[in-house]
């Protein structure tokens, strides 16, 4: 129940984020969720997209440094305390969260949270056990 995420290394150069997004736009690849982690000198653009494999290829073709990672995507209720409840489950299970980002669906009452832990499998088990809805690849790519 892992979901593929695209990570792109971006150096701190004017227009570089735009260029990456433009490449995906031209290839007709839709971005479902996005997060940027950065330092003053460089950053990592993380994306959940409609077609991760093809996204990786088109980006690499124009010399972006791209890596595919597995992440967990879950559904949480879009209300106060929704995300903290999930994090509490992981904390109880002693799972370290490397990063997390969220996006809210247009209509629904649910928010989708993308997270990565050091070890994915035990985290997935802990979340499933607590009754959290974990999203399948297809569900996430075409939200």
């Amino acid at each position: 129940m892992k979901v593929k995420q695209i990570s792109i290394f971006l150096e701190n150069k004017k227009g570089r984020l735009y260029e990456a997004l433009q490449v995906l736009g031209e290839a007709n690849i839709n971005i479902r969720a996005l997060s940027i982690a950065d330092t003053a000198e460089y950053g990592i653009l993380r994306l959940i997209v409609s077609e991760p494999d093809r996204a990786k290829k088109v980006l690499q073709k124009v010399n972006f440094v791209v890596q595919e990672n597995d992440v967990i995507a879950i559904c949480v209720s879009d209300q106060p305390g929704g995300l903290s409840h999930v994090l509490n489950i992981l904390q109880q299970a002693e799972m370290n969260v490397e990063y997390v980002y969220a996006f809210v669906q247009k209509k629904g009452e649910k928010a989708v949270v993308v997270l990565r832990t050091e070890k994915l499998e035990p985290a997935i088990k802990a979340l499933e056990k607590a009754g959290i809805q974990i999203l399948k690849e297809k569900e996430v790519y075409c939200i």
Partner: protein
Amino acid sequence: MFWNKEIETLSRKKLEELQIDRLKKTVKKVYDKVPFYKNKFMETGIKPQDIQSLKDVTKLPFTTNDDLRANFPDGLVAVPKGQIIRLHTSSGTTGKPKALFFSKKDVDVAADQMARCLIMSGMTSEDILQNMMTYGLFTGALVMHYGAEKVGCLVIPAGPGNSERQISLMQDFGTTTLHITPSYALYLADIMESMGIDPIKDLKLKRAFVGSEPYTEETRKKIEALYDIDVYNSYGLSEMNGPGVGFECGEKHGMHLWEDNYLVEIIDPQTLLPVKEEGQVGELVLTSLNREAMPLLRYRTRDITSIIPGKCPCGRTHRRINRITGRSDDMFIIRGVNVFPQQIERILMSTQRVGKNYQIVLDALDDITVRVEISKDMFDGNMEHLVDLQKEITGKLKAEILVTPKVELLEPGSLPSFEGKAKRVIDKRKL
């Protein structure tokens, strides 16, 4: 084994006595015979008799590349023309070549010190040397040739190129020793592989002398592994007889520099003063003590190295210098510290996760930024790994250059790539 045990293991005291004696003679000779030096002495008010101890060498004028060019072709020759038997040239990166003349004795001294080097590496008269350097105006091949003949081994004057013939010479005559450029040694191993020849099983190679182009310790180890041989580092320059000025012994830890023939100084290229302590890095300055046709005082080699303090277990008393780490022309100063781009390059090269291309930016606040491309394979999407890499490089660089640099990680291919000599340092302080 020694070629000339007495000289090679002479006590430091006797060696220094020999040096001062030869230095005085050299100084007197150039004063009397070479107008260029006489004028320099007059300008600074120095007389040959002012040189009484080795320390007095600092009173003498330097000789530079430009001086050699300005006195082209034979302005620095100190003997009658009839005594000159050989011309070599050294191609500079710019302008005219430098002309270098040898008397009969000079050729013999060059061959003799080369013979010391060869015996030091374990060669005997039973060995077979395939000399794959260019014979001609360049000193490399000829001085090696003469030295090997002195040792009494069979010399195959193959010259460079024609790889298949080189390999069949090795097979037909049982070559044990190569004199070769490092890049050609690497290339030749590929050719052998494509021909189905195993250099370890099918050849009788024991050792190689590689040189005439810069190479790293990693390259040396690679050549040693490919051929299962010993590779010895050497130092030489045409201005000082060519190859064999310094050479590694079996310890492979620094190159013994023949101090009966050369007076060694390490100077700070900025202040031109000797470095404060033995072992400190600086520019190698050599005074020839045993050259007849064209003695040179305090020749600035522009090569950056340091003396390895202490005795060598091999018993030779002639001090060792470290591998040349750069050219003094490339040096820059950051917050009062002398830094060579090669120091930074070496650190980056030892880090697998970055590419070979890099750039150094010095800005108005006297900050140094090192920009380096990450390698595609190292990127796993984890920010921590990038931060760790950045920290690791910063730490290693700080230990090397004593200033904390800012390290920027770039995408592969984003730095300009250079053909030939790369412009690595961008100094914004000069604008």
